[in-house]
């Protein structure tokens, strides 16, 4: 019986083991279609995951920024933000003509020069004209960071002559402030008031201001300011001397978050 089963199996094996049937054309088409779809799915996966991670990053960023406000206790962070935003925006500055300055930079030198001309003598006028132009030049050069710095230097000049050394732009600025009559000094003094917020004026810290550019946050802010001219940049960083630079503000159009401290 065992033997017969083997023979029986053999009969089937010998006849059917290499049995062939021609498949219809639809089979290959189905295989091909499925393999293409497979390939497309595989190509889509990296794209989708990239898109997903962008969404996750943005969401996480928005989520965590409010919680970080407790971390940055240094006052300098606040100051920094104020300085960076200043040039691009018209602040509620005290003086009339000055207010127009940031938006229309070209008008600034004209506005400044006119009062000086009327009051001061010729030689003085020459002197004052130079520093003002230099300030205007810096503003024009689209370096919002530096403009306020120099202005601060100019302002603090009359009360503390010692700072003169710290001023980078050159001997012209201090000269201009010293030489001209009180009127000229006032003219110069007016200018910074416009550019700077009230707080900055009260406690002039020119040296501090100059340090800020050197931090990573300052660098990033500078770069962002070149692209984003709005008051609230798309993202702003604290310019503390800390190793890490903290985000202090985010402006995504609809969503605006700003750390006020």
């Amino acid at each position, binding site marked *: 019986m065992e033997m*017969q*089963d083997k023979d*029986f*199996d053999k*009969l*089937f*094996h010998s*006849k*059917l*083991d*290499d*049995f*062939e*049937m*021609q*498949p*219809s054309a*639809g*089979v*290959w088409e*189905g*295989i*091909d279609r*499925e*393999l293409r779809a*497979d*390939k497309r799915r595989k190509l889509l996966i990296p794209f989708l995951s990239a898109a997903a991670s962008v969404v996750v990053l943005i969401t996480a960023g928005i989520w965590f920024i409010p919680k970080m406000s407790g971390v940055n206790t240094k006052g300098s962070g606040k100051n920094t933000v104020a300085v960076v935003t200043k040039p691009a925006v018209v602040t509620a500055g005290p003086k009339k003509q000055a207010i127009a300055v940031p938006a229309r930079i070209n008008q600034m030198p004209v506005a400044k020069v006119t009062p000086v001309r009327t009051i001061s003598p010729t030689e003085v006028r020459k002197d004052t004209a130079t520093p003002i132009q230099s300030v205007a030049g810096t503003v024009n050069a689209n370096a919002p960071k530096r403009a306020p710095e120099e202005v601060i230097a100019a302002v603090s000049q009359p009360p503390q002559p010692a700072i003169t050394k710290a001023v980078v732009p050159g001997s012209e600025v201090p000269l201009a402030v010293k030489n001209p009559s009180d009127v000229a000094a006032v003219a110069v003094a007016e200018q910074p008031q416009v550019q700077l917020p009230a707080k900055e004026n009260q406690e002039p810290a020119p040296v501090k201001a100059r340090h800020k550019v050197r931090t990573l946050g300052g660098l990033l802010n500078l770069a962002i300011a070149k692209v984003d001219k709005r008051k609230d940049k798309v993202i702003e960083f604290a310019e503390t001397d800390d190793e890490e630079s903290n985000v202090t503000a985010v402006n995504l159009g609809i969503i605006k978050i700003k750390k006020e401290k």
Partner: protein
Amino acid sequence: MMFLEQKYNIKELVKLCKAGERKAQELLYKQFASKMLGVCARYATDRMEAEDMLQNGFIRVFQKIGDFRDEGSFEGWVRRIMVHSSIEYYRKHHKMMQVVELEDAANEPSVNPLATANLAASDLMILIQKLSPGYRIVFNLYAIEGYSHKEIAAIVGITEGASKSQLSRARGVLKEQIIKMEGKRYGNAG
């Protein structure tokens, strides 16, 4: 087409298929399609089912071709995938324990009696396709693929004992049908 197929050997085609070359996939398919449809047909009830199994099997072949090592026979590898794909097909589409026994129809008169020697492969194929899926799978795996009961038990997910009893009952059904087909002669011999 024959000329094109002969220009490539299987090893080259496999290599190209691993790289996802569409043309190579088609050539490889054409190389094995009719042979593998012959395999699938033994597990199927009809041609349509067999072609479905063949399609699923080849999709899996191309998806897993990267796993194939050149050590063994590629045809053997493809064939194993076809067998598994066919069994898988039944897991999805049929209840394995479905009992549509040919024994129930044992009394029907056979239409075309044939001599044993003249039993054509296509006749045997028809007999196998008429078996219930459970019998068919075990008989195929044991008698034609050459698996042991232990292996069959693992592949199908039944006990070895169930595999043995399914096999002998499958043989019984087949024998009955053959006797019917060829008349009394084979019945006397067996």
